[in-house]
């Protein structure tokens, strides 16, 4: 019992660290990747005794994003605006960050791993109803943003907060409907079981990933996930040309760092969820427990420990690729107007999600059992 707790704690810390590093990667991508997309250089001025030039790579901007930004954020003065509710102003970043971090715990980042005779499930919290847990934490995540906007005693922040709340609760429904279709397909609420059933192949060579079974649900979940994390094109709450930072405008220092971290962590979470549901999670194509079974009939035996580690690496690679894709979307699309956003959410995604559930239900009943 205690060893399970210890292992669970270690895995949870590992997942939070993975989330943290993904957020830093996203921050770096936000600076230098966007510069690459927009054909400019990006941030490259910050320097520590000419370290970049000495190492021969002056323009990578590593010092800028990885050292200067966090140091700046955490050493800034932390003020509460005049007339604002001190308690709520301090609570809001925590309420925004906490649900995102605890969601990292249920995401399976690998199959079981066997070390010294003990078998550990590479998932920090093996909850049976993990899909419902996801929806619950996404629902709680609304409060941080709402209270952050309201507790700032600033009408523009309030505007950003209300827009964010309305957007998040609208796209929660679209996300839930896409999730329902996925749950119906796999017949289980457990994420590890969902990923496990994405092993194997169809027609001898096509990996049995979720995106091939539920392409519409993938698109719905992707859109709803981007809207939930308030990224462009859905970043009206944080309308940078109108509300400066929207609901975060009266926050500085560590609290703003918490909000920013929430932004990137939610993006990483969306990427991880998409990978888990639709892109096979930690499944490597054609890799089974004993080794590779290639379509041509070749077989490559691999040790079980290496199989598990390959799974973890595959998961991380898929998540990084999807995070980069989300960053690409962010730097390519213009922002939605509020009524367009609401129309897309309620009149576009929700009916599509319902139709998807209906069609999935028909197919499941017609083929007599879950896929």
């Amino acid at each position, binding site marked *: 019992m205690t060893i399970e707790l210890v292992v669970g704690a270690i895995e949870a810390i590992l997942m939070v660290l993975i989330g943290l590093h993904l957020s830093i990667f996203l921050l770096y991508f936000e600076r230098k990747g966007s510069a690459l997309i927009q054909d400019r250089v990006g941030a490259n001025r910050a320097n520590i005794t000419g370290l970049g030039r000495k190492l021969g790579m002056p323009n990578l901007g590593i010092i800028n994003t990885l050292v200067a930004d966090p140091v700046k954020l955490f050493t800034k003065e932390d003020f509460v605006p005049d007339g604002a*509710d001190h*308690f*709520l102003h301090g*609570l809001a970043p925590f309420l925004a960050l906490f649900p995102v971090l605890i969601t990292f715990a249920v995401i399976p980042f690998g199959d079981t791993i066997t070390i010294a005779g003990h078998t550990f499930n590479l998932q920090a919290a093996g909850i*049976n*109803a993990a899909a*419902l*847990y996801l*929806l*619950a934490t*996404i*629902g*709680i995540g*609304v*409060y941080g943003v*709402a*209270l952050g906007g*309201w507790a700032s005693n600033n009408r523009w922040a*309030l505007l950003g907060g*209300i827009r964010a*709340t309305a957007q998040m*609760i609208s796209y*929660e429904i679209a996300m839930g409907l896409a999730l329902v279709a996925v749950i119906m397909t796999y017949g289980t*609420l457990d994420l590890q079981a969902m990923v496990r059933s994405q092993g194997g192949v169809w027609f001898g060579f096509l990996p049995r990933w979720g995106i091939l079974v539920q392409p519409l649900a993938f698109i719905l979940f992707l859109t709803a996930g981007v809207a939930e994390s308030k990224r462009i094109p859905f970043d009206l709450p944080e309308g940078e040309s109108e509300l400066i930072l929207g609901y975060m405008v009266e926050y500085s220092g560590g609290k703003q760092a918490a909000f920013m971290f929430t932004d990137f962590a939610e993006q990483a979470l969306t990427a991880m969820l998409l990978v888990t549901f639709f892109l096979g999670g930690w499944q490597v194509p054609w890799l089974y427990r004993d080794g590779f079974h290639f379509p041509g009939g070749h077989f490559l035996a691999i040790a079980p420990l290496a199989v598990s580690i390959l799974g973890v690496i595959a998961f991380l690679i898929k998540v990084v690729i999807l995070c980069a894709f989300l960053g690409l979307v962010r730097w390519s699309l213009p922002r939605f107007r509020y009524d367009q956003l609401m129309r897309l959410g309620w009149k576009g995604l929700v009916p599509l999600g319902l139709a998807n559930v209906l069609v999935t239900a028909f197919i499941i009943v017609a083929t007599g059992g879950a896929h």
Partner: protein
Amino acid sequence: MPLILFWFLATLSVVAALGVVLQRNPVHCLLALVLTLLTIAVLFIGQGAVVVGFLQAIVYAGAIMVLFLFVIWLLNLPVETGSTGRLAAKLLGAIGVAALLAELEVFWVPSHLQVKAAGHVAGYGAIDALSQTLFSEYLIAFEVTSVLLLVAVVGAVALARRTTETEIQQRPENSARPEKAA
């Protein structure tokens, strides 16, 4: 469910419920209520009702309370200053509540609770068992509840709507009538 966890959650839920009733700032009352709902959701999960516990967190704490929050903002409720009610009402309320608690305590004495304890079947509280019971024994109630939700949505929209200018003009007392010669 571990006993320590139960006592922690029980204390937390009672403290949060008291917070709902005693706070002066409506938003603080709301946050205390969200905390109560979440602790009750965890208590549900501890009892084995996993799906209902998560549904409580999703629906109650995640959606209904956000609705409350929106209404508090819309009405721009101030922090309450001054007395929060007549003293006579508070005294009567206290006496009534004490009587209610005493009566309930009589019922919950262990010797009076004649509940046959039965074990949980495998998959108790999982979504399969819930759906089976819901769609077989309680099907009519389920359908009626969906109609109720539709009625509630329509009713809420109709009640909270502002009357538009054209509707005010179309009222009979506002329509143009030929002036009678006095």
